[in-house]
């Protein structure tokens, strides 16, 4: 499998706190990768660096042979509008816009005309089973519906890579299951690569592979395959 995204020796500090202490990882195209670890271990920071939201203090981020950590703010912003899709735990929908307008926003930012953007938005809302709330505002719909609208917005530009940071963190288990189910199904259908940050093992269960972060470093023993002998007790 070809690697589509790589991080090499990523270091990032916030003031005196070192969130990442040299993280190296590779994401293969089309796979769903879970990044797990206890809270405060730097998972979100890693996602922000890989998605081009933040510039790391040291190290490289390579997306399809481009060093995106050297790109300008504007270029990285454009990347996040088009080839990357981003999904947060909450607070990413514009409260004053309707659900349909929220989903149409990235298309409009890329120059699509309002009418076409709206049509595309409606079709995505249907795919995610939330077409009935298209004219409502985020404050008027449930958390699970909000996250599905946010997912639609992340996927509307048909990104190559979807970054999800605790997408079900504020949802109950059934609503979360719905969101993740849609996410995985749609990602597989479009062969979208997914980087999924979570501290919840049941969410990590949806991924093909898992990387464990501890205190800003990759914990190698947490890889998908067990090390050493795995004799099952009788």
């Amino acid at each position, binding site marked *: 499998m070809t690697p589509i995204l790589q991080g090499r020796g990523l270091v990032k500090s*916030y003031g005196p706190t070192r969130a990442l202490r040299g993280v190296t990882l590779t994401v293969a195209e089309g796979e769903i990768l879970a990044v797990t670890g206890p*809270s*405060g271990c730097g998972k*979100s920071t890693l996602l*922000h660096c890989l*998605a081009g*939201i*933040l510039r790391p203090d040291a190290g490289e981020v390579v997306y399809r042979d481009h060093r995106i950590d050297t790109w300008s703010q*504007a270029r990285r*912003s*454009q*990347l*996040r*509008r*088009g080839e*990357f899709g*981003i999904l*947060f*735990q909450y*607070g*990413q929908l*514009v*409260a*004053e*816009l309707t659900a349909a*307008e929220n989903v149409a*926003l*990235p298309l*409009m*930012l890329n120059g699509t*005309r*309002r009418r076409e953007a709206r049509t595309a938005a409606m079709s995505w809302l249907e795919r995610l089973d939330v077409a009935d709330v298209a004219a409502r505002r985020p404050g008027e719909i449930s958390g699970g519906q909000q996250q599905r609208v946010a997912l639609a*917005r*992340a996927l509307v530009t048909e990104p190559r890579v979807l970054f999800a940071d605790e997408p079900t963190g504020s949802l109950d288990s059934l609503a979360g299951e719905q969101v993740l189910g849609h996410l995985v199904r749609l990602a597989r259908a479009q062969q979208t690569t997914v980087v999924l940050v979570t501290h919840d093992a049941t969410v990590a269960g949806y991924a093909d592979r898992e990387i464990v972060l501890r205190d800003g470093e990759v914990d190698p023993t947490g890889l998908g395959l067990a090390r050493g002998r795995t004799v099952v007790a009788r």
Partner: protein
Amino acid sequence: MRPAALLRLALAGNRTDTVRILLTAFAAALATLSMLAAATVYAIRPRGDAALREAAGLAPTKEGVPGVEPAPDGYAYQYTHNLLVEPGLRPGVALGLLLLCIPVLALAGQSARLGAPARDRRLAQIRLAGATPRQAVAVAVAETGLAALAGTAAGMAAYAAGRVLLHRPDASGRLPLPTDTLPPLWTLLAVGAGLPLLAALSAALLLRRVAFTPFGVARRHRTRPPRPWPGLLILAGIAAFAAVQPVVRAYAWSGRPMPGWVLPVLLGGGGALATIGVVLGTAWISQAAGRVLHRVARSPAALLAARRLMADPWAGGRVFAAMLAAVVVGAGAAGVRAWFTAEFDAREEVSRANARAAGWEYVPGDTSFYTSSLDLVDAAVTVALVIAGLGLLVYLVEGLVSRRRAYAALVATGVPRRTLARSVGWQMLAPAVPAIVLALVVGTAIMRGLVREVRAGSWMQFCTVDDESRCGEGSPFLRTFEIDVVRPVEVPYAELAQVGAVALAAVAVTVGVGLLFLRASTDVTELRTE
């Protein structure tokens, strides 16, 4: 609660709270200055002694008026500017200075809301620690009161300094400003103690709708959509002004003297109604602007702005209030200027015709008094606009700061900061432009309702020969000359455009400065939850 504890709690806070306290103090200082200036002008004791009159270029003694102090006719010749000399104008000046308090109050009100959510959360936590609701409100009120006290003290210090620094008597001992006068002691005490008390009381009043429960803060919001009823207020104001001439004529025709209160009520009340109508109508304008913008918006920036306007139209009304009031006054002043110009031109024409007919030399009159007075009004309007612009800036920055998490998330998902900046621009300008136009129209309309044309005329008899004794009744050397001039009062488009441009520029500059905060407030560190 012990006072020391109250003080400690009131002053605990972060940078935003400090800014709020400083702005409150600043507004209090400005209000103090304006009130003291007004009181000083009102307290002027006119002196009409001979030396001053001579210095003013007048005859040493006016007929029948002894040169003593205070001069019974009220003329204060110890000052150089006519606005301070004439007893008919001084109250107007005092009133104008006092009215400058209005935009300052608007600034104070806007500053009080800066960082209010965080402050309210802090107070809710204090309640969680065991304070009673009254104690929680007391903390907030104490903060405002103390800030206002500091500002008032600063304002009084500035006033005292100004009295010393601006005391510049010219060669003949006349002063440009009333730096030799002090308002009576009770006025000083009233301002010094009253302003902080007023600030504290209004803080308490503003908080009465807020319930500081230990679980958080519950603020009851108005969710009524704005209606165009304020339009009626505007029409009433215009009608009041338009009624002045007919009412005056009616009194003249009936022979009864017009009571002294009729004119002030019609003019003052009409002006107030029209201005309040414009201010209240801004909410409806905001929402209408939002709806129109939503329909025609093609860019995401405009769409965002449209939705935001529709979501909270009342905010626009509060924020633009002071500015629009200043614009109405400015438009009215432009109308007054046009009226005076027409009046003066008409009188000059009559004078010229008389001079031509009688063979006299024509001497043009002096309008400098009126024009300089109107210049002062324009200056006051500009100052008010600047202060209103400050209030707008505070509102803008507060909006950015309170939304920073949402904005940061948007930027992270790829929305360029440029789009957010443009949406703020749309959000401010879309309602501002029609509102300013409305204010200009209203200000002009009330003046047009008052007077649309001027008349001047004279009837005189003069001798065609030098020997006046030959100009008796029926003499061929006695000529009669009568002239009647009617001139229309022009609509002062140029000045109106100027007022509108200044107001728009104030909004634009405010938006520009406010957006400098956008980068800082959309930093990704706002997204951290760990």
